[in-house]
């Protein structure tokens, strides 16, 4: 992985960390908290396809990414919840599509895709599990420095390997894109629609951190595994781990293994997406983010208002794996493969 690609990943950590940490610092409770969280999520995730389409052809992607960081920094300094949420939400959306596109277009391999996404989960997990004002201020200073640095890294010159679709393979495969989005929707759904029965021990207050670390680990190694073994083994391993986690909801370790399994597919999803729509990677990235949220909130709504349906998760897990396998064959049929992505096949 090229060293320049660590910077977007680090910035992703800070953007997600500050967005969540600062909102928690308002100590909101009850329905107002729920409404503000939904508002933040809606602002941060749903406009991403729109921002992606708007900024797709910009040649100043790092600058736009830094503007996203700047909005998050302003949000972190505003002591009023609603205004802060607007800054966090819009800053987050701009940052994600711009830096996401940068990583998608500037990395030949899949590992950087997973690493970029994983650092956000780490920031989220940390923000949910600790509280220290001095550490907050110190991290804010580091965040500002890195956001400025991001404007001066010559990504175009520094990174020799650039993902380029072959001639005649740069049109959008709509069916593949729909199936990829469907898989993301399912993963968002059962990310929320799972009945963990963890014992309420002393560990329980660290649950958010454990979750964050499991998600981080799954997303981070997913890209490396994809580069090493190809997509079919990754889909199979992810499916098996998810199933193990599902059948042992009372075991903390096996549940976390399931969480790792589900998140292994993140890099593969992004890799498939950039091959399905190589000319619109920012839009594609935004599309995945929007449907992750829609799936997540649908899962939350179903869990809140209807009796829990235990049979639903394994069916969705199987559908998720099936849809990704179908995308794999679709891309192969269209000749949109690389040795890394299709290592298993060759």
């Amino acid at each position: 992985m090229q060293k320049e690609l660590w910077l977007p990943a680090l910035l992703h950590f800070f953007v997600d960390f500050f967005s969540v940490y600062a909102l928690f610092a308002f100590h909101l409770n009850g329905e107002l908290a729920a409404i503000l969280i939904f508002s933040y999520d809606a602002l941060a995730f749903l406009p991403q396809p729109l921002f992606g389409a708007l900024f797709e052809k910009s040649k100043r992607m790092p600058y736009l990414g830094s503007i996203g960081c700047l909005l998050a920094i302003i949000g972190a300094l505003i002591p009023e919840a609603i205004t802060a949420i607007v800054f966090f939400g819009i800053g987050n959306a701009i940052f994600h599509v711009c830096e996401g596109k940068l990583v998608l277009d500037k990395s030949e391999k899949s590992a950087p895709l997973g690493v970029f996404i994983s650092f956000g989960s780490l920031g989220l997990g940390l923000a949910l599990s600790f509280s220290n004002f001095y550490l907050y201020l110190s991290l804010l200073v580091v965040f500002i420095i890195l956001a400025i640095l991001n404007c001066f890294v010559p990504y175009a010159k520094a990174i020799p390997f650039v993902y380029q679709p072959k001639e005649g393979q740069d049109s959008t495969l709509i069916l593949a894109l729909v199936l990829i989005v469907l898989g993301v929707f399912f993963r968002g759904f059962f990310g929320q629609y799972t009945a963990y029965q963890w014992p309420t021990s002393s560990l329980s207050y660290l649950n958010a951190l454990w979750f964050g670390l499991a998600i981080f680990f799954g997303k981070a190694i997913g890209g490396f595994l994809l580069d090493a073994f190809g997509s079919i083994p990754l889909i199979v391993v992810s499916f098996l781990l998810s199933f193990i986690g599902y059948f042992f909801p009372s075991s903390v370790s096996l549940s976390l293994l399931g969480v790792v399994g589900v998140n292994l597919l993140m890099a593969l999803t992004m890799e498939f997406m950039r091959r399905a729509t190589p000319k619109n990677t920012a839009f594609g990235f935004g599309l995945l983010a929007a449907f992750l949220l829609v799936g997540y909130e649908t899962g939350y709504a179903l869990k809140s208002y209807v009796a829990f349906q235990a049979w639903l998760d394994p069916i969705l897990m199987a559908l998720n794996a099936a849809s990704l396998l179908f995308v794999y064959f679709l891309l192969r049929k269209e000749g949109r493969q690389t040795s890394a992505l299709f290592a298993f096949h060759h």
Partner: protein
Amino acid sequence: MMNIQVFDVAPISFVLPIVLLIGLPALAIVCILVAVLIIKKRQKKANQLAPKAEPVLTASPKEKAPEKGEEVKKDD
């Protein structure tokens, strides 16, 4: 994405299910539709700006290039 499980969320009024099940997906669809329109418009513009393909000139049988070994007749 923030995990709402970590909050002590009070019993939710009838507004939130509507927001969750109708509002958010509707907003997502609107954003996606606008994005697709932007992409389509950009593609259309790019197609209009692209140089038109020049007509392919095919040599008439009379002007056919001499084959190997064939003598070239010269006009007097």
